[in-house]
C-alpha cells in the first residue's frame, strides 16, 4: 500500500485517497468546436505509460482536496506532489 503525501495533511495511507486518473486534461473551452474524434479523445483516451505519470488524487478521508501527483507506474515511487492548476514539474524520467 502506497503512502501519499497530501499537501494539506501530510503523509497518509493510500486507502485514504481516491484515484482520479490522468492529470492535466482540461475540459475543452468550446466543446462544440471539437470534432467527434477530438471530443472522444478528451473523453476516453488516456496515457498509460510505464514510467512517471502525472495523475490526480483526492484525500477522500481527510481534507477532501484534489491535488496532482507524479508517480512512477512500475516502482510506485511518488516523485512529486503539486497543487491543482500548477504545471507538471520537470522530471528526467518523464514519459513522453
Amino acid at each position: 500500500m502506497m503512502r501519499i503525501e497530501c499537501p494539506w495533511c501530510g503523509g497518509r495511507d493510500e486507502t485514504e485517497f481516491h484515484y482520479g486518473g490522468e492529470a492535466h486534461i482540461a475540459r475543452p473551452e468550446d466543446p462544440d468546436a471539437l470534432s467527434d474524434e477530438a471530443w472522444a479523445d478528451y473523453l476516453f483516451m488516456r496515457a498509460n505509460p510505464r514510467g512517471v505519470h502525472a495523475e490526480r488524487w483526492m484525500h477522500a478521508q481527510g481534507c477532501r482536496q484534489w491535488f496532482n501527483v507524479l508517480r512512477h507506474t512500475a516502482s510506485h515511487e511518488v516523485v512529486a506532489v503539486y497543487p491543482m492548476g500548477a504545471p507538471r514539474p520537470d522530471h528526467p524520467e518523464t514519459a513522453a
Partner: protein
Amino acid sequence: MTGPHRLPAGGRIDRSRTLAFRFDGRRYTGHPGDTLASALLANGVRLFARSFKYHRPRGVMAAGAEEPNALVLLEPGPFAEPNLRATEIELYDGLTAESVNRWPSLRFDLGAATGLMSGLFVAGFYYKTFMWPPSWWNRIYAPAIRRMAGLARAPREPDPEVYEHRHAHCDILVVGGGPAGIAAAHAAAAAGARVMLADERPRPGGSLPDGPERVGGEDGAAWAGRMLAGTSALLLPRTTAFGYYDHNFVALAERLTEGLSPSERAGRPRQRIWHVRARRVVLATGAHERPLVFPGNDLPGVMLARSVTAYIHRYGVLPGNRAVFLANDDSVYAAAREFARHGGEVAAVVDLRVDGTADADGLPVLRGAVPLRTLGRRAVTGIEIESEGAARRIACDLVAMGGGWNPAVHLFSQSRGMLRWDDQLQTFVPGRSAQAERSVGAAAGRFDLEGCIAEGAETGAAFARELGFDAPAPSALPERPHRPAPAQTAPPAGRGKAFVDFQNDVTAADVALARREGMHSVEHLKRWTTLGMATDQGKTSNINGLALMAAGLGVPPAEVGHTTFRPPYTPVPFGALAGRNIAALADPVRRTPMQDWQEANGAVFEPVGQWLRARYYPRDGETMREAVARECRAVREAAGILDASTLGKIDIRGPDAAEFLNRIYTNGWKTLAVGRCRYGLMLGEDGMVFDDGVTTRTGEHRYLMTTTSGNAAAVLDWLEEWLQTEWPELRVYCTSVTEQWGTITVSGPQARALLEPLVEDIDLDPAAFPFLSMREGRIDGVPGRIFRIAFTGELSYEVNLPWRRAAPVWAKLVEAGAVPYGTEAMHVLRAEKGFIVVGHETDGTVTPVDLGMERMLSSRKDFIGRRSLARPDSQRADRKQLVGLLPEDASEVLQEGAQIVETPGATPPVPMLGHVTSSYWSPVMGRGFALALVRGGRARHGDRVWASATTGESRVRIVDPVFYDPEGARLDG
C-alpha cells in the same frame, strides 16, 4: 519421561511440568516448551498425516514454518483451526488435534488406494483423464476428486475468537529474531532509532537454540535475550511478517494466545494484525534447508538434517535411533555429529558430491553415493543407496537429508526485489532491491555466525545513519568463508515416487512430464503440476522443482527463473484479516429518525447503501403484495407518509452557485426564484444519466440539492471534483446536510387536511403554495421547511425537520390517520407515473433522450455531457428507449431483468431488443405493468413483443411509459 524418544536431559523445555494432550483420540504427554510435533516425536509417533492426492503416509520433516507434511486440525468445533503446522503449535494442557485427509483412520486409510492407481493421477490428470463426457465434470468427477483430495475440512461454526488490527510506524523494522536480526535491531536501537523486531518464534534467537552454536562462548538464547534486554527495540514474538507491500508497508500477524487452551484464552484476541510502515526494513528471515529428491523421500522418518539437530537441542528429543545422513552440503556433517553425540547411531553419511571434502572426523562417510529409495511401508526401516557402482541397503529408522540451504527470500521478493541465482549455493539469493530494505545473514546467503552478526549490526547502524541517527561508522565485514557448493538437484536415480512438492504431491516425474508436454516456462510448470501452490507456498519445493526443470531442459537454473512469491508467507486466518470489521461493525450503519418507530411497528426493511429503508409495513397476516397494494391505495385515495430522510441533501452556496448548477445540470437554473424548486438531471461527461433530484433555491446565493439515496456521496464528490479541478474560479461551497434534515413525505388527496392541523404559519392551499415551491415555517412547533414535490403524482408535501425532531411529527401524522407506505409502494406509484429511478431505468448507458426527457436539455448553455449527446452513437435511432409494457395476461407481473425478444422460442443467438427495468402489480389499474428499455421503443408503441425470463416467456404490448394521470390533474389534490 514423556515418551521413549525423549533424551534424559537437555532441550529448552520445562521438565518440571507435564502436559496431557490428545492426537487422533489417543492421549500423550509432553512439556511446556514442546511443540505438538516434538511431543509426538518424543512419544515415538511417526505417522502424522495422509498426503493431499495419493494419501501417502507422512511424518514430520522439519521443525519450523517450512513444514510441508505434518498439518493438523487443532481443536474441535468452533475453535477448530485447519491445516496448522504441528511444528509450530505450542503445546498446552488439554490440547486436542486431529490428522487430516484420512478416512476412516490415519493408519488404515481407504484413500491410499488412489496411490495404487497413481498412474491416473499424474500432473494435469484432471485436464485429460476426466474429459468425457463433459457433463460428468460438474456432477461426478469434480465432487469425487474434491472429496478425495485436500487437507483439513474448514470449520462449520462461526469463529468465537476475536482478532484485532493495529497500525504502527517505526524507523527500522527487523524481520527475524536470529543472530543477524538481533544484531541489526540492537545496533539501530542503540543509535536511537525506533525499532520493531518481529520474530515468528516464541523466543528470540532464531537458529541459535536449534544447535550447539555459542556466541563468543555464551549460550545463543542467552545472548539473544541479553542483546535485546538493554535496548528500546519493541520485540514482537510469535509474530510473522506475512506480506511486504509498496512503500515499506509490512503486514505482521501476531499470535497472542499461542500455547493457551481455548478456555485460557477466553476474552483475549487470538491474533493481532500489525500494519507497519517502516522507513527501513531489515530482512533477517534466515534460510530453509533444501530436501533431496529421491524415491520415497516422503516416508515418515525422512527429515531435514538441521531439523534433527533442532529436535535434540530445542526439545530434548532424539527423532531416531539409527540414522543415515544424506549430505549435499557440509552442514549435514555437523548434524550427524550432534546426533551421534546425543546417543544416536550414525549408520552412514552418504555424501552426494563426488568431490566432497568435508572432514569425516570418525563418521562413516560414503562419498559420491546416491540414495535409490527408502525402505518401509508406514515409516522408514532402511534405505537403498548406490555407492561405487553397487546398490546396497542400510537399515535405519531415520533418514536425515540436507540438500543445501534456500535463503527465505519470500518477503524480499514480495517487495519486488530482483532475485539472483547463486551457483555456489545452488539457489536464489536477494539481488537488487526495489524498496528501502536490505537482507542480512542467512536470508542473504551468508551462513557463518560471526559474519551474520557483523552484517546485521552493520546494516542496523547503516540504516540508523541514513535516517540521521548517530551510529558508528562502518567497519569491514569478515570475509565469507569458502563453502563447497552442493550438487545441482538432479532427476532421481532410483524408481518410485520422488517428491518435489510434498504438500501438493508433485513428483520429479510430474516435473519431467510437464516438460515433455511443453510446459517449459516455470509459470506453466507451476500451474500444470500445482508445484508450490500449497499452503506452504513451496518453501521446500520451489528451488528443487525449477532445478529439475533446468536439468531436464539442459539450461542453467538461472535461465528457468522462478515464479512470483506472493503473500502470505504462512497462512493467515480470514478472521485475523477481518479483525473487528465483522457483523455489525462490517460497515457503518446509518439510521433514519423514523427507524425506531418503523422497527416497533413491524416494518420490513431493505438495504439502500448504508441505510435500511422500510420497504412495506405488513399488517396482521398480510402478504407483501397485499400490504403494498393497501399502501398504494391509501396514497391514491387518502394520504400516506413516506420516510424520505435518506435522500441525499447538499447545501450549495456562494455567489456563483446558479452558474455552477447551470453547468452541472442539463436544464437552466438562472431564472429560478427564491423559494422555488426545480427537477434536475445530471449527466456524466459521456452524456449518460448520472443522477437526478429536485433542487430548491433557499436564498439569494443558496440552494438545497437533493440526490438519490444511494448516490449522495458520489454526487458530492462529483460537485467537488468539478469545483476544485476544473472551475476553481467559481465561488461555490458544498456541504452535505443529509443527516441534518429528517424528511417526511405526505402524499395523497387528503395530504393537506392531514398536515394542516400541525402547521402554524404556512398556507397549504395549493393556490397559495403552488407545486414546485418551498415554504419555511413551524411544523408541530418545530422550525422546518415544506416542499411541494411529488414522486407519486398525488398532492404531496415533503416536510423537512431537524433530524432529531422528525420522529414525533411522524407519529402524530400516523395518529391522525396517515398510512405509512414503504419504498415498494413508492416504486409502484412512481412507475405508474412513468418516473425513472436512477439505477433502475438507467445503468450508465442511458441518455436523457433515451428516457424521453429531451425537454430537460437546455439549448441555451453548455452543461456536462451535452457535447456527447451529439456523438453519432448517441443519435442512433435504434438506441434502447424507455417504454411501458403491459403483459397480455393482466394478472402477470414480469420479472425485472427479463429480456425483450421479437418472437418466442427462437433458436439462439436471439437478438436482444432490451430488458425490463421495473415491474410491479398496480392496484389502481388492477394489473401487472412494467417499464422497459427497448430498441427504438418509442416508435413501437402498440407493438407486441415477448419478455423472456427464467420463469418463461410472456407476450407483452409496448405502450407509453406514463400509465396513470398523464395530464397531472391530481397534483393539486
